[in-house]
């Protein structure tokens, strides 16, 4: 075996308690992995959406979904992500008032998204229902699962809103604002993909 130096390298010698800082990134790693597994769930359901279209042209039977709600919904969510990102920068600069304002704006935009979802569903359900066929089943499972994620994300944002302290702390939550923002950006990204794949592509397909 190659002989290995047993001396502690110089750069490690000084990096010892009480010099060492408290680790506040574990939760962020956990959230990143949680997002990875959640994203895979959406990929699996999208796979189901395409797999059940194998061998039947659903656009001969169905109209492509309309865009007049889904695109504004996308705009609302992307705006909310932008606002939340700005808020996060304010947290880093310790401008907690501005950050709280950004958080509140994000929550309101999220609620706006849910209102638009309600309008979209009440119109869409007149022509397509989850029980219509496999297309309806996969379409509504995907969109409503995303809706559930929006609700969950909103609840977490509200929780961050009432948590009195966002500075790095010895105990959890470490970086609550950042971790929940990650989740919110993920939820928004999912909607970006759903709008493209479930709403826009069928319309392009029908024009072509």
């Amino acid at each position, binding site marked *: 075996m190659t002989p*290995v130096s047993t001396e502690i390298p110089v750069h490690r010698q000084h990096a010892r*308690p009480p010099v060492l800082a408290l680790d506040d990134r574990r939760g962020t790693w956990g959230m990143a992995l949680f997002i990875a597994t959640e994203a895979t769930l959406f*990929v699996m359901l999208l796979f189901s959406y395409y797999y059940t279209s194998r061998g039947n042209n659903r656009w001969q039977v169905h109209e492509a979904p309309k865009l007049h709600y889904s695109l504004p919904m996308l705009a609302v969510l992307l705006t909310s992500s932008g606002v939340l990102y700005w808020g996060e920068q304010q947290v880093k600069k310790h401008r907690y008032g501005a950050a709280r304002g950004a958080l509140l704006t994000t929550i309101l935009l999220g609620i706006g998204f849910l209102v638009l979802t309600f309008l979209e569903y009440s119109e869409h359900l007149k022509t397509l229902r989850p029980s219509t066929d496999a297309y309806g089943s996969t379409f509504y499972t995907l969109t409503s699962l995303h809706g559930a994620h929006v609700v969950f994300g909103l609840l977490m944002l509200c929780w961050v809103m009432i948590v009195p302290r966002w500075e790095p702390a010895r105990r959890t939550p470490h970086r609550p604002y950042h971790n929940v923002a990650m989740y919110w950006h993920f939820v928004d990204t999912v909607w970006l993909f759903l709008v493209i794949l479930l709403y826009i592509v069928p319309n392009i397909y029908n024009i072509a």
Partner: protein
Amino acid sequence: MSTAVQQRLLDLWESPKTLYGELSTVDHKKIGKRYIATAMVFLVIGGLEALLMRLQLATPQQNLLSPEMYDQIFTMHGMTMIFWYAQPILSGFAVFLVPLMIGSRDMAFPRLNAFTYWAYLLSGVLLYISPLLGQSPHGGWFAYVPYTNMPYSPGYGMDFYNLALILLTISTTGGAINFIVTILRLRAPGMAISKMPLFLYSTGTISVVSVFAMPALTAANLALELDRRWATHFFDVAHGGNVLLWQQLFWFFGHPWVYIVFLPATGMISMILPTFSRRPIVGYVYVAMATVLTGLVGFGVWVHHMFAVGEGHLGMSFFSAASMTISIFTAVQVFAWIATMWKGRPVLMSPMYFALGFIALLVIGGLNGIVTALIPVDWQLHDTYFVVSHLHYVLVGANMFPVFAAFYYWWPKMTGRMLDERQGKISFWVMFIGLNLTFFPMHLLGILGMPRRIYTYLPQMGLTTLNMIVSIGAFVLALGVLLSFVNFFWSWKHGIIADKNPWRADSLEWSTESPPEPYGSVHLPTVATRHPLWDDHDEEEDPTGERILDQGRLTFTSTWLDADAFALSSMPEDTILPLLLAIGFFVICGALIFQWMWVVLAAILFSLAIGAIWLWPKYESEELA
């Protein structure tokens, strides 16, 4: 080291020995032991179900079990063994061992760790409510539609299947995330990724695999439940659904799952076998790489479960080739183990017996697996006892044998007492003979054309003698397991007292007391080589006590590649919240089976409240001393 320091650490880390203390502990050593004990209970239940099946099949036209009962029992046997024994037992060992092996004081998320255990336990409880109603799942462990869909499987059996598995999936995914962050972030200073014990490679790999494989099962369960109770048409061909969608989703999860229940077992062998060969493992880098590659390529072989459904030729050729490729990585490990023994001085003690038995059985199970990776042969053998034989050689041979090796090896660390050597060796031989007697004749039964999942057969079919042999073998195997259980219970109280490192092994868990103190090591260890206890280094030298960390529940955080300690992780106190959250999830899943939606809603709100309290900051004086 002074006893005052030890007392201070004990005050910090010990859970009170009250009922409340036991229910709210987040100590990975306690949780790991609970995982192991619970999984062994499921092993016994699943084993008894197997014995019932073998009694039914021992002679032709037996009337012990009705066809429906037989269906329920073989399904519960498969589910119990594959989902509630094979993976959780490995998780249990990993929960106990990983923090000790990396010289940390707990897992990265101790409360999540407690939650995943309770969720696992309660998911098993949920599953076993179904036999009490006489409505167990009855569609085999992989529950193919359309048979498991509403028109053909009325009653609650398949709903129990879906919801119990969803709850288990939540537990497994949470556990996997916990292992990944623990292994990548909490390793002892100096334990670079190239110096990790191989068990960490296998546990880390399957944790990553779990994160990406479990959602496929969740999606499949969700779709089936929606189809059954909520009028959707995922699998309903008359309404544009596709029955093969179930198979695609299930096996996209299912084959990676095979490696999830197999790779940590190889990791255990890579720890045990070098210790008893008295030398470092040969080809450490190749074994580590083979482990990771098995996990990766394991995502590209799932269609080999579906060769009989009529997929395209190009696709099938790809999956056939991938299935054969993956055996190369297993072969790398097998040759590394053989070379380690060859170059070492093997000491034949009972853990080594089980490890050697495992290698023999893995080779048999691997070779008859390659046989079924060949499409023309697979078409002949699909759904016969040949496949049953293959999967049991792999699951019993390559999961249960390493687990028993692990019991004989790590029992002294867990209990402070040695297991009896002679009983261990007798148990090994009885199990080994019983296993081969049970599963080898199944090859022949399969080639003779005996289909799996049948509840009886006719005397003139020529299957009588072989089935009798199989049934006798099953009881011999059960006797072998029973002998080890007797050994466990006897040695628990009467075994020889073990010192810190009875096997003179190389990895860090052996530097702690047997059984380990609640805080692990007094001075958190540092690592300079792959074999910290075999190679001299300054591990114990900490004259100024910089690595005691008794200012609170603390452990080192290190960089994921080189393991330079750059921060301290503060660990949470004991709390009852994980148990409450698991109960909340249990009620959600249980009430969904019967569509008691108000109960579901109440349980969701309860769980959300628990989650909010869980992460709520605390305000005691908490600055570091």
